[in-house]
């Protein structure tokens, strides 16, 4: 009886990349503010990763519109009880933060670095928002399963955290930084994030009960349980712990977390498609 909005791959990628962008940024801001000086390299990677991703996110949103040329119409209103309305603004504001933080991540000036850290703390809030608001957007629609999931936003945020950190970890590896302390810290942060995500996921499924059937059984069950839960969280968590000794495993873990994060958004969105 109810209608699905017809959001497909461009929106699934948006959810995924937006989660990474938000997660990478807030991880960077935390590392920048609470980590050691050596962690500023990790912070820079985080800031720099979030910038192109946010730009890409913006593009994905515009392209998905029925009339893309009217994307600025989102700026006509700001409805504080409407996740999509706030989200439209927040993407732009967050984009500005990622730009400033990215530029400032190259500074050698201590005062500018200090400014960067302060800016990071504010931008971090927008990062949290970007990673989670799309979940709240889904849970405040009329479609069953989405509408029943009070923890969708919380889950998306945790996933944004784990995928953002995994992406940063991967970039640390690719830029040859695994020898440094930053690698261990990002791995540790990701590990904590995965554990939190698993707990939230368990609560999410428990609260939903049979309403979760669109992803826990039927067409998407294999993908959800196999692709997201096992391969996307449980296995990478184990590999992450083992990765303490064997670096390669940590890298594989990061890749699997990313895959799992994509699968999560894929099954959540696509299970309502018809």
């Amino acid at each position, binding site marked *: 009886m109810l209608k699905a909005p017809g959001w497909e791959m461009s929106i699934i990628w948006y959810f995924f990349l937006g989660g990474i962008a938000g997660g990478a940024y807030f991880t960077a801001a935390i590392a920048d503010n609470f980590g050691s000086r050596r962690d500023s390299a990790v912070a820079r990677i985080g800031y720099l990763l979030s910038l192109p991703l946010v730009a890409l996110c913006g593009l994905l949103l515009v392209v998905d519109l029925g009339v893309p040329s009217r994307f600025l119409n989102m700026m006509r209103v700001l409805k504080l009880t409407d996740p999509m309305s706030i989200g439209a603004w927040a993407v732009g504001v967050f984009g500005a933060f990622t730009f400033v933080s990215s530029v400032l991540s190259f500074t050698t000036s201590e005062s500018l670095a200090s400014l960067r850290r302060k800016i990071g703390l504010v931008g971090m809030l927008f990062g949290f928002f970007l990673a989670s608001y799309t979940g709240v957007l889904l849970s405040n629609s009329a479609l069953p399963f989405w509408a029943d999931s009070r923890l969708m*936003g919380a889950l998306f945020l945790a996933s944004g955290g784990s995928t953002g950190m995994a992406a940063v970890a991967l970039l640390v590896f690719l830029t040859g930084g695994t020898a440094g302390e930053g690698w261990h810290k990002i791995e540790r942060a990701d590990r904590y994030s995965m554990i939190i995500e698993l707990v939230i996921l368990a609560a999410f499924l428990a609260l939903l009960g049979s309403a979760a059937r669109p992803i826990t059984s039927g067409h998407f069950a294999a993908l959800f349980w196999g692709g997201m839960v096992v391969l996307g969280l449980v296995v990478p968590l184990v590999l992450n712990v083992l990765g303490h000794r064997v670096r390669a495993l940590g890298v594989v873990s990061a890749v699997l977390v990313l895959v799992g994060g994509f699968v999560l958004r894929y099954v959540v969105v696509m299970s309502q498609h018809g």
Partner: protein
Amino acid sequence: MARTLAMFTDTSLCIGCRACQVACKQWNELGLEQPEWTGGYQNHAHFTDKTFRLVRFVEEPKPNGDLAWLLMSDVCKHCAQAGCLEACPTGAIYRTEYGTVNINQDVCNGCRYCVSSCPFGVVAFNEQTGTATKCTFCNDRIHNGLSPACAKACPTESIQFGFRDELVAKAEKRVETLKAMGFKEAQLYGADSGGFLGGLNAFFLLLSKPSVYNLPADPKLPQRNVVVDSLLSIGSALVVGLGALLAFRERGKGDN
């Protein structure tokens, strides 16, 4: 604010002729559309971007062997608390001074959030225009002293148009009359402005439970959980942020 207008669809008078469905298409110039096989006379399972008034045919075999064929002209409910309106991020969906809900086709950019935010599945996406569409309550007609096209076309006055308070009073009397005639399950749907969604400006008289007509028994505003969900997200952020903090901080040294 002008007096609220409403449409009262009394299904006890409906003969399923589809004049309403066609009059709406003609007035709104909705164009050619492929029908669907639904197993009976109904030619679309639900509302589409080109069918704003949809006549539903429900065969209800009764335990005593009799058959009831429930005929209902369904339409956008123009809810007093409208999920589509709350969801719209461009302000394209607005409420007129008459209380009706309309989608401005020049502003809508086709994000489709409203499509998933209607508890009745009314709003649909038009691929050709790239916008969301639904019943306009014949916005142009009511602003020129005319009734909506569907109400005008209905031969048995099953669809009645007028001021909401007057129609509700009429409908309440009608339910009592029907009950006295033996229609034990006759009931109003959406007439009560203290009821769900603040009342519907297109409300109905049904001859059976709402679920028989595929209507939700107690529809709610999808946005009612925004605060709770946001708070839970904030909680999640705090925990995840704390985890990251614990992972990165230098023990006992602060952020030097």
